[in-house]
């Protein structure tokens, strides 16, 4: 018989260590989570990244042309012009070339060639304007003939072969893009191509919520 009965402590050593370590890991994981949460920078919408708006004049995307408005004489059938919208943001004239989706294709087709689902009210003198950014994974599309789908002038993505029929609202004629290119309604005013509003459908790399809120801001301005 021992004289001293061994008393069970309230908390065993093992349990204490497990609880202490568990707490440490928990707190550590939480702080790590907050750090990971902070790696996404806040969205900053600089003026040149804004959506095209009503009244924006389309200017040459070619840097050599120094942002001059696209001349009507350059817009011919079978030959497209690439452009950026240029308009007032907060009182100053800005060429909105900060995002690839703002680079636009200006194409011209003969009378009666453009059909629905193109927004026909948004075309003028056979001129139709689309975003140049492919809806699949955001590469810039090229405009060329695509004989296997009987298209004289199609927007073709060099990345994964998305093909858009520009006479029919840039519907997807072949390949993987989940949606047509976004059209911009335009009017020819005083020899310049002027946007009559922003993209008619959701362009690439913007959520519906962001698109809605940016459109609302445009309407306010």
């Amino acid at each position, binding site marked *: 018989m021992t004289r001293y009965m061994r008393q069970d402590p309230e908390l065993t050593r093992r349990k204490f260590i497990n609880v202490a370590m568990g707490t440490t890991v928990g707190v550590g994981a939480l702080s790590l989570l907050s750090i990971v949460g902070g790696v996404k920078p806040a*969205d900053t919408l600089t003026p040149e*990244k804004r959506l095209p708006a009503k009244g924006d004049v389309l200017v040459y995307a070619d840097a050599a042309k120094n942002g001059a408005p696209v001349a009507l004489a350059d817009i011919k059938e079978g030959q497209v012009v690439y452009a950026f919208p240029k308009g007032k943001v907060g009182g100053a004239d800005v060429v909105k070339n*900060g995002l*690839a989706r703002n680079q636009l294709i200006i194409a011209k087709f003969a009378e009666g060639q453009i059909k629905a689902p193109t927004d026909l009210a948004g075309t003028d003198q056979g001129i139709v304007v689309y975003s140049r950014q492919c809806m699949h*994974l*955001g590469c810039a599309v090229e405009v060329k003939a695509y004989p296997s789908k009987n298209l004289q002038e199609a927007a073709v993505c060099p*990345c994964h072969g998305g093909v858009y029929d520009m006479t029919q609202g840039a519907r997807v004629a072949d390949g*993987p893009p989940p949606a047509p290119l976004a059209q911009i309604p335009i009017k020819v005013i005083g020899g310049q191509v002027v946007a009559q509003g922003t993209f008619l459908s959701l362009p690439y790399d913007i959520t519906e919520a962001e698109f809605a809120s940016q459109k609302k801001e445009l309407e306010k301005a």
Partner: protein
Amino acid sequence: MNQWLDDRLNISRLNDKFLRKAFPVHHTYFLGEITLFSLIVLLLTGVFLALSYEPSTRLVPSFLDKTQMVPAAYSSILRINFMPFGDMLRRIHHWSANLMVAASILHMMRIYFTGSFKKPREINWWIGMLLLVFTIITAVTGYSLPYDNFAKTTLGVVVGIVASVPWVGDWLAQAAFGGKFALDNAFMIPRVYGYHIMLLPAILLGLTGAHLLIMIKQKHTQPQYAKRIAYKKIVGVPLSTQQTPIALMLAFLMAGIVILFATFIPVHPVEVFGPASDNPVANIKPDWYLLWIFGILEMIPASAKFTLFGGEIGPEFIGGIVIATLTLLVMLAVPIFDQSKENLYYSENPTDHPKRLAGGIAFFGLLLVWSVAGYKNDFQWPVMPFYVLSVVVPLVLYFVTIAIVRGIKSFRAADERDMAQGAAADD
């Protein structure tokens, strides 16, 4: 000297445990070593490239033409090209990366076809698969860094694929690449640089260490000839000293070939693509080991999209992530299909396991079909034949392989019969 070190570090124990490790001598057993040597060459050349590279999208006057404003990353690559051995370092780095991927795939094929992934080596198969995946991710982040128009297009596609994940994709892409993809995104190139020179190499080195330690612990599978020489005994040359000169010779031979390639075949000439811009790159293709995913992306039709619990699942997610993940899962699952309870000692003759052999060949046939589909756009091929080929080619390869193996078997059996008859006639 040895005594002095031994007294302090007990190296004789290290010697017994690791340096006397027996390496089987067989030409297919060098593929893993070549992968390791490529990694070492990549680390060495990478250090020198990192010393002169500037990870920034800030616009600066171009190194070649001061009137032109280009991203600093691009300009620093032009400067590296003009440094002594600069272009050479870039080329060696690039070729070694290609070699590392190629050697690891061949290494994996050897392990698969000889059944070396079987118990007890399943863990090392999985680690090896992770190594292959991370090697490819490292390679892609690497060729995004020069920030020429090719790199920018590649990055755009990678960001787009990440962003296509339903529910979380948009946040994920912005967190990983520092905001929305844009030419002037100041965070993007530093992030990719951080992944390429710190995070991913650390992962690669850690996994490589685990891979090698497990290999030493479990020992190599023995080639078939070892069975004839000394049954159930380990046949091979010890790392110190006999294997070392063999490995060194192999390393120098490999380095020599890489340097020859680098000398005569330029890689990724950034001046051809020009600095990052909004213009398209004609006929853009990823490196060869990603061509199969590229092909899948071209094959998935526009109609493959639906909404699930509020998340958009589109052709870019299915093509870029779902099918690629399923393919990798099939590869990861390889050891699970094996039912053997015994530990494997000897590498198996592939023709003794015709189903496994045929399955592997069919699998690579499928990847080849998808890779060819990557050229669909250039030739305006219709997509339908590729769906048919994706089924037909693997099936044909499977049954043709089984038939060939049967043929070999019957020849071998006939041979043995003849030999036996001959021997009987001699008696």
